[in-house]
């Protein structure tokens, strides 16, 4: 049992590293194809995960693993929409109009700003599509408006943090401060149950102990 859990954890870490690399590639190379980067990293990590779990070659299992990391396919989709410069300029104008003086100065200097949520905590919103909301403990949230420019997404996140943060959080993926995907950590026990559960031991044979005086032939 513990061997299985360790292997699953190891696979999860390797998957995490692959996706982090993909994210780094996306941020570092402006005109690269981030979707392909995600796909490549995801496939490589899935392959390794499958190898560790001994399920290579079974398409159904691969689909199940892909479901766990489905966000990796969805995350970059918004990058391809909303690149219209006019739309971005309009969205940025609206964002700046809605920021207060300090937030506007921070945004102009570093393309990010801090927001105090109605839950009393401070969050940082950065000008990028994925995992761009950072919480007070370093955790990151990825809740997108994929059909709008990034600047609109930042405005939406700001307004929701200020007025309805739960709506943002419940629809976001969360990356814990230690760099692990919370959904993945939560999925490990399920993966164990579904994929590497040991064969259950057979039931012990039933034994009936009749009183000796009820057995025929015995007095």
């Amino acid at each position, binding site marked *: 049992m513990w061997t299985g859990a360790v292997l699953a954890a190891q696979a999860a870490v390797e998957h995490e590293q692959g996706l982090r690399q993909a994210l780094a590639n996306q941020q570092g190379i402006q005109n690269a194809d981030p979707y392909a980067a995600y796909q490549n990293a995801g496939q490589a990590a899935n392959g390794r995960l499958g190898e560790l779990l001994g399920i290579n070659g079974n398409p159904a299992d691969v689909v199940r693993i892909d479901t766990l990391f489905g*966000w990796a396919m*969805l*995350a970059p989709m*918004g990058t391809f*929409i*909303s690149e*219209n410069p*006019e*739309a*971005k*300029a*309009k*969205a940025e*104008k*609206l964002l700046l109009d*809605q920021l207060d003086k300090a937030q506007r100065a921070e945004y102009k200097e570093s393309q990010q700003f801090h927001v105090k949520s109605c839950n009393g905590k401070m969050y940082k919103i950065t000008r990028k*599509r*994925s*995992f761009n909301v950072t919480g007070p403990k370093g955790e990151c949230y*990825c*809740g*997108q*408006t*994929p*059909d*709008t*420019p990034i*600047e*609109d997404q930042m*405005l*939406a996140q700001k*307004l*929701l943090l*200020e*007025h*309805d943060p739960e*709506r*943002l959080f419940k*629809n*976001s*993926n969360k990356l814990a401060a230690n760099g692990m995907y919370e959904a993945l950590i939560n999925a490990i026990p399920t993966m164990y149950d579904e994929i590497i559960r040991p064969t259950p031991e057979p039931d012990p044979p039933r034994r009936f102990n009749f009183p000796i005086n009820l057995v025929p032939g015995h007095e």
Partner: protein
Amino acid sequence: MKKIRILDKTGDTEIDFDDSEVTAEARELAQAAFEKAQKGGTAILTKRAGGAPDKVIRSFGEIEDQAEAIFIPAIVAG
């Protein structure tokens, strides 16, 4: 005059309206957009008169004169 801004792929779509007949068509459009925004999205009233704080609105009638209602589409986990 009341104003709504719908966040979309163009940046935002702005609709101005009031209670007069002249803006009846715009008002209908705004109401339809509001109902759409309520399905998974959020509408927040900003720039309210007298510096009143922003607030989430749940009904179309809550949109105030001189204020801007921003319609946020549904948030999708990325």
